[in-house]
């Protein structure tokens, strides 16, 4: 029996389930009672880790593209490898996929060293390379059948088409698809052998927000199915939305790693409560300061910002506002995000310009 962590797509509650490798379970979320299917992945003596990277290094002449990085990815989790363009994301993932030769270090996939066993592992991984474009003059279905026939283990192509909402496009030529649909087909290709690990290298780069959301939906669906997903991205909201575990890479080194909550707790600022258009804002600020809230500030137009160190303080402030009958238009609490984490860690923003 092995443990499989599961994040409810409805309420994001994380729970653990136990089963035998390959076993399909019907599970129910303890928080919102949503029912879903879960497949326990084949662990294959990998100590619960689908990917284990140790002291990986890649040097091109004088350039150290990847500098002695180590990390591991648990079975069934979505692991986001986050960093700006040129940070070493693709070099790393392509070394794990055996497309590039590492200068040093070791890589294990499903408990097997890829130096010696990559041919065995090929049947169990699915890959969407960066900026992938498939054969232009094959239809969506033909494309999937082509790649499916390369593997011994085959998933049901029509089921993949259905699950990725490609049914109405299955007879369209690949070249006639929109960018979002092409990426969806790319993800579909990576599933034709029913893989245990799926590598998606920048699957939403260049897509418009709608198409990006579509691809996110597909990746979220893979997580529901219990697949291990290794996702490289330079979009922090993508990592925030999808990832169970995030590693931040910058200039070839992993500078932070953990869950989103870990990263924000360790490297981000505290949350801030914003009170909008408060009547008598100066008096309210004074009152809050007297109550012991040191970091209260005016943001003009009657807006007030209050630093929240711990969640109980939210209730205290609300009770003060209610007790003193203070009128305001709206109130929100903003959590620190990965952008702030990245800014604090590197001194630069995690945007496409950061490259």
């Amino acid at each position, binding site marked *: 029996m092995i443990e499989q962590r599961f994040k409810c797509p409805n309420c994001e509650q994380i729970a653990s389930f136990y089963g035998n490798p390959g076993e399909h379970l019907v599970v129910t979320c303890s928080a919102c009672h949503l029912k879903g299917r879960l497949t326990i992945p084949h662990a294959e003596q990998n100590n619960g880790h689908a990917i284990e990277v140790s002291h990986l290094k890649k040097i091109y002449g004088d350039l150290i593209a990847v500098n002695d990085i180590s990390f591991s990815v648990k079975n069934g989790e979505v692991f986001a490898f986050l960093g700006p363009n040129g940070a070493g994301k693709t070099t790393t993932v392509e070394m794990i*996929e055996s497309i590039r030769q590492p200068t040093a270090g070791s890589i294990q996939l499903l408990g097997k060293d890829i130096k010696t066993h990559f041919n065995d592992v090929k049947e169990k991984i699915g890959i969407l*390379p960066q900026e992938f474009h498939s054969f232009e003059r094959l239809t969506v279905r033909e494309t999937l059948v082509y790649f499916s026939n390369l593997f011994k283990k085959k998933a049901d192509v029509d089921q993949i088409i259905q699950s990725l909402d490609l049914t109405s496009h299955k007879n369209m030529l690949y070249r006639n698809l929109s960018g979002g649909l092409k990426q969806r087909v790319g993800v579909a290709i990576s599933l034709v052998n029913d893989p245990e690990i799926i590598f998606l290298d920048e699957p939403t780069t260049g897509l418009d927000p709608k198409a990006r959301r579509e691809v996110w939906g597909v990746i979220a669906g893979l997580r529901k199915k219990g697949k291990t997903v290794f996702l490289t991205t330079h979009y922090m909201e993508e990592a925030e939305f999808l990832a169970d575990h995030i590693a931040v890479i910058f200039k070839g080194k992993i500078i932070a790693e953990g869950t989103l909550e870990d990263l924000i707790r360790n490297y981000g600022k505290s949350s801030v409560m914003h009170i909008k258009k408060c009547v008598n804002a100066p008096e309210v600020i004074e009152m809050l300061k007297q109550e012991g809230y040191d970091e209260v500030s005016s943001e003009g137009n009657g807006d007030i910002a209050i630093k929240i160190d711990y969640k109980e303080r939210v209730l205290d402030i609300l009770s003060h506002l209610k007790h003193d009958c203070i009128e305001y238009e709206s109130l929100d609490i903003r959590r620190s995000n990965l952008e702030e984490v990245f800014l604090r860690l590197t001194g630069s923003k995690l945007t496409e310009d950061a490259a």
Partner: protein
Amino acid sequence: MNLKIIWMDFVYSIKGWYRSKGGMFWSLAFPVILILLFGAIFSGIGSSKYTLYVQDKDQTEMSRMFNATLNGTKLFTINVVKADVNASAFIKEKNIKSLIVIPDGFEQTIQESFTNPSARVDLQFYFDPSEQTTTQVIRSVISSILQEMNKNLSHAKTIIGVQEISTITENFNFIDFFLPGMIGFTIMQGAIYGSIERNTKYRKDGILRKLLTTPITRTEWILAKMLFMMFLAALTTALITIIGILVFGMTVNISAWVIIIIIATSFLFSGMGMLIGRFVKEEETADTAAGAISFPMMFLAGTFFPLEQMPGFLQTIAHVLPLYYVNEALRNSMIYLNQNESLLNGVVVIIFAGVFFISGVLLTKWKED
């Protein structure tokens, strides 16, 4: 080796090619258009006769015999110019390109030659230097007729030069020369550009990286693509040959040896394409590089015109070009039925194919640096 994978890739390649208008045009329509066009220009479809003006100032049996021989070649539309007309003035006035004058005393001088070895009469051939092809054809025909007449009149031994001219002008047309060249050229274009597409476009699109992470081996993939190249080569060869037979009434010999040459040609130029794709990695640049190599080769290797018509140094260059040996091997086997010559050139093609294809396979890699 998984034959099912090779067959599947081959079938899907045909599907993709069939759906590509550009692919269909360059593989099938383009060679057909070229062969019809060049065939029509050079091989006597429509008005093919050369116009020749003849002024017979001698008006004797011998001069009439010369006229009749000229007519008998069926190469000329002969216009008679009256004997009392001034030839130079007539040419200027009528803008005449070619005129032959049989001088007064033509027959008499020939008769004198039996007793006087130094007796000699010259025909006057007026020509326009800018009309090189017409001039050359007329000059060679007149020369052969005169040699034949000299030989008959003087009972001299057979002159070899007459026989040579007879062979070239009577037995084979331009289309006979052109058709095998067109086959070699079409296979070369398809193989080089097909190979470049696989090695640059597929690399850029991530398809090679994707394939690297699937169980298909490089050998299986290359064999599948070679199978497709040979399919295209067979199709274009068949099409061009059928047009040669049906439209131009050619007699074409297709043998096992011709098929071997065609297969070797596919391997040769696929290997060349792989090498170009290996060293010039960007698709557009690789296309330009392919054009820079294949286009001059097309002209220099005797595809459209016989090597003998080229300057000496270009003939030397042709002998290091693989397409030259392909053309010669196909031509000698399919048209001239000179199998020894074909064998010699075909062996050179096979050696070139081995060197280029093996180098291409060894130097091409799917893995990134």
